[in-house]
């Protein structure tokens, strides 16, 4: 096990497209263990994607069971070649990223998603996620396409408030 080095923007490699995983072997298992250890070592991190540690494959982990305030979650999700197939609702929330230190910003994400992904053994699963966990999954899937939350920033000032007013 090892804590891997996190690439930080402006490292151009964070903007590249990751390749699908085709081989589900011991090396993959070993990498997943290191990736998880790296995620848990980051302060407050609930997700990590392989490109963040310089491995440009479609691999991500999310674990929203450890948040300060409990949120609906599926525990540790191992996401290999994940595909989001359905998006529903929109919500603004604050995001930060281990690859973008010292900055957080507001991002619009789908409130609920349906997602298919393979696990470490190459078995496909389907998940329905909402809220904070859905946000984390969308953030990590973006990394696989070379997207950072900086690419999706919205105003810090107005969006949330307007939405709140209309909900009343």
């Amino acid at each position, binding site marked *: 096990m090892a804590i891997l080095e996190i690439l930080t923007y402006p490292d151009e490699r964070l903007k590249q497209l990751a390749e699908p995983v085709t081989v589900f072997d011991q090396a993959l298992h070993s990498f997943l263990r290191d990736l998880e250890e790296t995620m848990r070592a980051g302060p407050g991190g609930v997700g990590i994607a392989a490109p963040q540690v310089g491995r440009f494959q479609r691999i991500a982990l999310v674990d929203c069971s450890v948040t300060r305030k409990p949120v609906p979650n599926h525990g540790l999700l191992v996401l290999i070649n994940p595909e989001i197939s359905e998006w529903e609702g929109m919500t603004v929330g*604050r995001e930060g*990223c281990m690859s973008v230190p*010292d900055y957080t910003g507001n991002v619009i994400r789908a409130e609920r998603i349906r997602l298919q992904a393979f696990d470490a053994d190459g078995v496909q699963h389907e998940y329905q996620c909402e809220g904070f966990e859905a946000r984390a999954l969308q953030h990590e899937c973006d990394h696989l396409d070379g997207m950072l939350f900086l690419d999706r920033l919205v105003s810090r000032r107005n969006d949330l408030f307007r939405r709140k007013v209309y909900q009343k």
Partner: protein
Amino acid sequence: MKHWYMLTLVGKDRSGIVAHISAALFDGGCNLGEASMMRLGGNFSIMMMVEFDGTSHALQQMVAPVAESMGLHLHLDRIAAQLHQHLEPDLRITVYGADKAGIVARITGALAEAGLHILEMETSVAGSVEQPIYIMQIEGHAAEGLAALQSALDVVAQKGVEAHLEAIDTMIG
């Protein structure tokens, strides 16, 4: 030796101010840090962190002609400053209601006593001349937890003033 300065400019708004000022600063060898520009009551206002290898006087001499040419008042302070020192907000408070004197003092006073550290605040007067409404948005850090702030808010939010507090749960991925 480089120093940080806080440059404040205020004046009648028009397009191109930021471009002019930042070009003058760049040409003069300055580096910009964090900045916040707002249009308040039709006025242009900006505060910007400027890093400059020279005296306050020299910087003043450099910026004054540009500010003057655009009708802006200039104020310069040498400051102790560092970048990469952001404090992350963990709550957002929105307050709105019919515009009445004392809303801000009453609400922020109670919140300060309950442990609120305001990191960003923006207020606006909207509505119409006949019926102005006051809107305040605060992002801050709760030193003594959200519950203490909610209790304080419940007490001070009187009839006709809507006050809403919500946690900011930042997702770090």
